[in-house]
């Protein structure tokens, strides 16, 4: 089968992988990058468990050809913690709010929520729901997930104001 070299930036470092052209981005991130936060859930764009940011926007990596990643900047959940491995505020908020049960959906929800927690103006709960409408959770009932996202965005806005 045809293979190709793909060069892109993943979680801040330049990577070059030789891949089978039939790979999805999720195949490449897990298989070549060892980034297991990227889940193989439905694999057809329904559940959001494979969500990563590509040039800052959330995409389902299961329905994104790995070859399309050429030259792109990709962020996965692993890229959120700092160099020492300390987790980020949004991850901590998910833990504190009880928004994690089995945890399978969690990386996808967190990545999908990034555009909203990095915004200047606060988003309403309805807007948060809309932002994560492409993510499914079989355990938590969603409310706690919305709480965690809401809490983090408030915290970040307050921190900015304090500066």
């Amino acid at each position, binding site marked *: 089968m045809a293979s190709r070299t793909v060069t892109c930036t993943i979680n801040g470092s330049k990577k070059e992988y030789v891949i089978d052209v*039939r790979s999805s981005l999720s*195949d490449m991130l897990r298989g070549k990058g060892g980034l297991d936060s990227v889940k193989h859930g439905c694999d*057809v764009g329904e559940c959001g468990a494979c969500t990563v940011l590509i040039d800052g926007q959330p995409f389902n990596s299961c*329905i994104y*050809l790995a070859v399309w990643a050429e030259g792109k900047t990709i962020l996965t959940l692993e890229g959120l913690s700092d160099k020492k491995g300390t987790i980020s505020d949004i991850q901590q908020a998910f833990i504190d709010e009880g928004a994690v049960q089995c945890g399978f959906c969690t990386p996808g929800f967190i990545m999908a929520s990034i555009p909203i927690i990095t915004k200047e103006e606060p988003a309403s709960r309805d807007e948060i729901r809309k932002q994560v*409408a*492409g993510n499914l959770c079989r355990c938590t009932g969603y409310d706690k997930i919305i709480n965690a996202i809401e809490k983090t965005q408030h915290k970040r806005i307050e921190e900015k104001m304090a500066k």
Partner: protein
Amino acid sequence: MYNFKNLYEPTSVLEALKLRKEHPEALVLAGGSDILIKIREGKLAGCDLISIYALDELRGICLEDDGSLLIRPLASFTDVTMHPLIKKYIPVLGEAVEQIGGPQIRNIGTIGGNICNGVTSADSAATFKAYDAVLEIASLDGTRILPYAEFNIKPGLVDLQPGEILTGIRIPQTSWENTYGCFIKYAMRRAMDIATLSCSANVRLTKDKKKIERLRIAYSVAAPTPIRSHTAEKSANDHVINEELLNKVAEGALADVMPRTSWRASKEFRLHLVEELSRRATRKAIERAGGKING
């Protein structure tokens, strides 16, 4: 790993057209939110693909010298919703595609793919029909212009010949100028769902805002392909704005649509939706245009 055979990756539209000619059986892959899923399901397993997704010359939205709004086919649903020109001239299109899937799907799904796969439920289709969009279709022999009204042949089949690629969707100035629209999607869920039925209406009112100068109205899932109701439009044009007008629009629409029963909904329920959504969308479009029902 996807189960497809060959992947061709042109780096220009010209190269893509050459590949289309050399490999007429290969499918054109835009964002892939339709084709890649069908490959996963096994329906298209083993196919050949020509990926045009990386062709940035097919992205973007602009206003042409002749006043038409040109949307390139690889503009994503998010691009369309967020674009200032869309917000200014045809916001109803942005509202329509904002109801597709979830954010991730709206980032990858393209406006061209939405109309080229030819399904009756395409969320942008009713609005493009109602704004009388015009398509630019390129091949090695040149570019032909085709009214979107003539594009859909039957479910899943559009007038794209071997060797051709959709390169632009135009909304002529005569369509958007001074018009106000409303799109309503009826679905079982508020996100990640396919329309049970949807309606897109737009109106231009007379100067005194007492009469309809022109109504255009179209539907998704009300027939085997997206359909515009000329009967509804005719009965509305030049009509004073009142409740009777809304009834006539609904009646006219019922005369033109041909919905069927599917697992999503029965034919009877769809007919009911046609009637009700026609009224609601027309009413809202009139209000947006500054008109008052029975005012």
